[in-house]
C-alpha cells in the first residue's frame, strides 16, 4: 500500500473514532452534547455544499434555501400533519429535492458570479415566505410548539426525544450514510466527470460530457444532503427559524467549507467545527465574535487557499 493511501485511511479512522466517542469526551473539553450534535449537522450541510463548490467548481450562495426547506418541511409535517420524526424528515428532504430540481433547471446554464447571485435571490424568496406567512410558519418567531418524536420501529424504540446521546447517534447515523454516499459518488466515473468540469469546463464539454446536465445532477445531490441536514437541524432545536433560510446562513456554509479546505473531503467538517466552536465560545466573551471569524477567514483565504486541512497536508 502506498504511504499516502495509508495516511488517508488512518485519518479516516481517526475522524470516525472521534465522532463515535464524542459523547464520552466532549464534557472533558468543556463542551456539551448538543454542541457536538450541532457540529455534525452543520458539517453535513457544509460537506453537501462542498460537493458542488469543491468538487464540481460551482459556487452557490443559496444553500440555506434547501437547508431551510428541509427544516420547515420536517417541522410543519410533525406539527400539523403527523407527529412522526422519520416521516417529517422524508417530507423535508423531498421538498428540498423538488425545489432544487426546478430551480436547478432554471439556473444551471449560468456560471460564476451570475450563478451565485441567482442562488442568493432564490434563497431570499423562501426566506421571505417563511418570514411573512405568519399563521403557518410562525413568521419571525419561527415554528415552535412541536418537538421531535421517539421512533418506534416495531421491534425497537429509539428515544431520541429525551436522550441527547441517543439523538446524537441518530444524527451521526445519517451523517455517516450521507458522507459515504457522497464519497462513493466522487470516486465513480460520474464523480470524475464533475472533477473534469471543475478543472476545465471547455475540455469536459469536448470530451462529450453534457456539462449542464452533470452540474444539475451535482447540484441536486448537494441540495438533497443540505435538505437532510436542515431536517436534523430543526429536530435538534425542536424549532424552525426563518434565519436558516437566510443568505447569511448560506454564507456561513461557504465559510465553513473554505475555512476547512474545499479540496479535502473532510475540510468542511473541520471548518464547521472551528466555526461552531468559535461561535459558541467567543460569542460568550464578546458580541463581535463574527469579526474574529472574519479575521481568521481572511488570513486563511489569503495565505492558505486550501484551508486548514491544506496547511496540515503541507506540514
Amino acid at each position, binding site marked *: 500500500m502506498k504511504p499516502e493511501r495509508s495516511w488517508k485511511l488512518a485519518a479516516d479512522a481517526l475522524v470516525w473514532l472521534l465522532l463515535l466517542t464524542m459523547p464520552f469526551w466532549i464534557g472533558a473539553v468543556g463542551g456539551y452534547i448538543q454542541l457536538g450534535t450541532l457540529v455534525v449537522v452543520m458539517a453535513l450541510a457544509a460537506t453537501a455544499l462542498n460537493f458542488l463548490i469543491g468538487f464540481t467548481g460551482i459556487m452557490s450562495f443559496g444553500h440555506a434555501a434547501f437547508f431551510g426547506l428541509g427544516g420547515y418541511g420536517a417541522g410543519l409535517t410533525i406539527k400539523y400533519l403527523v407527529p412522526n420524526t422519520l416521516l417529517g424528515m422524508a417530507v423535508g428532504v423531498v421538498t428540498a429535492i423538488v425545489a432544487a430540481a426546478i430551480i436547478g433547471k432554471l439556473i444551471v446554464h449560468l456560471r460564476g458570479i451570475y450563478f451565485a447571485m441567482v442562488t442568493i435571490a432564490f434563497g431570499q424568496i423562501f426566506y421571505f415566505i417563511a418570514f411573512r406567512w405568519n399563521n403557518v410558519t410562525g413568521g419571525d418567531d419561527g415554528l415552535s410548539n412541536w418537538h421531535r418524536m421517539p421512533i418506534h420501529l416495531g421491534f425497537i424504540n429509539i428515544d431520541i426525544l429525551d436522550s441527547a446521546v441517543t439523538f446524537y447517534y441518530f444524527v451521526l447515523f445519517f451523517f455517516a450514510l450521507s458522507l459515504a454516499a457522497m464519497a462513493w459518488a466522487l470516486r465513480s*466515473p*460520474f464523480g470524475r466527470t464533475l*472533477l473534469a468540469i471543475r478543472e476545465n469546463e471547455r475540455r469536459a464539454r469536448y*470530451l*462529450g460530457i453534457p456539462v449542464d446536465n452533470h452540474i444539475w445532477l451535482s447540484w441536486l445531490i448537494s441540495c438533497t444532503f443540505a435538505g437532510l441536514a436542515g431536517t436534523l437541524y430543526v429536530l435538534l432545536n425542536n424549532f424552525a427559524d426563518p434565519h436558516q433560510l437566510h443568505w447569511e446562513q448560506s454564507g456561513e456554509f461557504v465559510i465553513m467549507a473554505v475555512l476547512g479546505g474545499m479540496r479535502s473531503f473532510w475540510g468542511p467538517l473541520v471548518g464547521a467545527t472551528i466555526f461552531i466552536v468559535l461561535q459558541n465560545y467567543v460569542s460568550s466573551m464578546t458580541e463581535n465574535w463574527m469579526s474574529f471569524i472574519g479575521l481568521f477567514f481572511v488570513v486563511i483565504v489569503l495565505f492558505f487557499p486550501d484551508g486548514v486541512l491544506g496547511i496540515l497536508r503541507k506540514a
Partner: protein
Amino acid sequence: MSLLEVENVTKRFGSLLAVDSVSMSVDSGELRAVIGPNGAGKTTFFNLISGFVRPDAGRIVLDGHDVTGLSPARRVWRGLARTFQITEVFPRLTVGENLQIPVEVAAGFRLRIGLSGAERLKVRERADELLEWSGLARNVGRAVGELSHGDQRTVEIMMALALNPRLLLLDEPTAGMGERETYEIAQLIRRLHREKGLAIVLIEHDMRLVLRMADRVMVLDRGAVLANGAPAEIVANEMVQAAYLGKAIA
C-alpha cells in the same frame, strides 16, 4: 460519401464577417490542412464545425447527420473530437486521470456511480493502450501541468483519441513549440492518420509541415476560401502566393 460536409457556413461578429459562406468536404481518412494569414477566420471556422459557436447561415453535416444545431457534447457522440490552440487539459490531474476520464465517457460510463471489475479492467486496459501508444506511459502518475509544452499537447491529442473519433480537428497543434517538439507532434499526427486511419483537419502555420503531410489544403483569407487543392497546386497558386505565402516559399 464524405465524412464531413460543411455547406456555406457564415458567421458574423458585429460588423466583422469572420467566416463568409465557406464550404468544405472532408473524406474518411483524409488529412486536410486549413491555412491562412492571422485573422483569416480559421479558428472561427473550427468553432463552427465543433459547435463552440453557431453559424448565422449554412449547414454542417457529420457522417450523414445534420449537426448544425447540436451541442458540442452531441457532436462528440457523433464522432467529432478537437484540440485547441491553447492546450485544454486537466493540469492538476495526473496523466493517467486525464486519459481515464475520456475512456470512461467513451465507454458510456459517464453517469455510472460504480463499475464492475470487468468494466474497470476494460477502462484500465484502454487507458494503458493509449499511454503506451503515445509514449506517455512513463509520466502516468505526474500532474499534466508539470509536463513540457509538447507532452501536454500530446496528452490533449490522446484525450481526443480516447473518444474513438472519426474526425479529429487540431487547432495549431505545434503553436509555440521548438524544432524538436514540432517534429514529435508532427510524427504523432502522421501516426494518427496512418495507423488509426483518422480523418484529420488541421490548422497549421508551419508550411513545411503542411506541405509534407496534408492530402489537401484549403486556404482562407478574410473569412473566404481563396483556394482548395493538393499541396503542389496551392504552392503554385499565384493568388495564394500574393495573399499569404509570399516570400516564405519563394
